């Protein structure tokens, strides 16, 4: 699955995107956040407050309890500040 990061999530993780093999027991957005945050300090800092993190699967907003399903791309980012 392709994972993309934006704004301060990207800065803390240290890169804008990557390809990952999602383990079988990682089924939801929340599971993936938990799994990623164990990778290293950067990921841990990016996901330190999971409730503020927004997610999109295949470029559509989703909640943290959403299943990863057959999604090809998931993105993590802070609350949006455009306009």
């Amino acid at each position, binding site marked *: 699955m392709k994972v*993309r990061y*934006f*704004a*301060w999530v990207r800065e803390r993780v240290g890169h804008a995107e990557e390809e990952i093999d999602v383990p079988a027991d990682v089924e939801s957005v929340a599971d993936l956040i938990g799994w990623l945050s164990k990778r290293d300090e950067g990921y841990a800092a990016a996901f330190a407050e999971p409730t503020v993190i927004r997610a*999109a699967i295949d*470029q*559509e*907003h989703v909640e943290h309890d959403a299943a990863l399903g057959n999604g090809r791309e998931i*993105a993590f*980012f*802070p*609350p*949006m*500040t*455009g*306009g």
Partner: protein
Amino acid sequence: MKAWNPNIRVQRDAFDLNEETRRLVEGRGDIGATVAFTGWCRDEDERLAALELEHYPGMAESEIARIANEAAERWPLQGLTVIHRTGRIAPGEPIVLVLTASAHRQAAFEAATFLMDYLKTRAPFWKKEHAAAGAQGDWVGAKGSDDDAAKRWRRA
């Protein structure tokens, strides 16, 4: 069924309101009102040198289109334009344009407000500050008041 498609652009370049308005109304005899909202980059009491606008390419456009189509369903609009800039934007430069056209003013005003409220909270753009003193700026935080503004449009 509406006979027009929203004009949506995500671009680095600045835009010209008069030009965009002319494009929207040109050759049309049915439009009675246009409402334009322009969001500008402020210097925050000279503290800011610029804003850097990051976006999620693809999703930014599709999310604006989704919001625009919802506006077209809810109000009797005859056209609309949304332009959102990305990249480095200096104080005094425009960031975003929402332009709505309708037969009467109320729909044009309300739809423009709705579009901006939803853009703020749903369109994937993020602002980073560049401080005037050369210091490393920080990411702009989301405002609870923007969430509240978007919530008031929720349908029961």
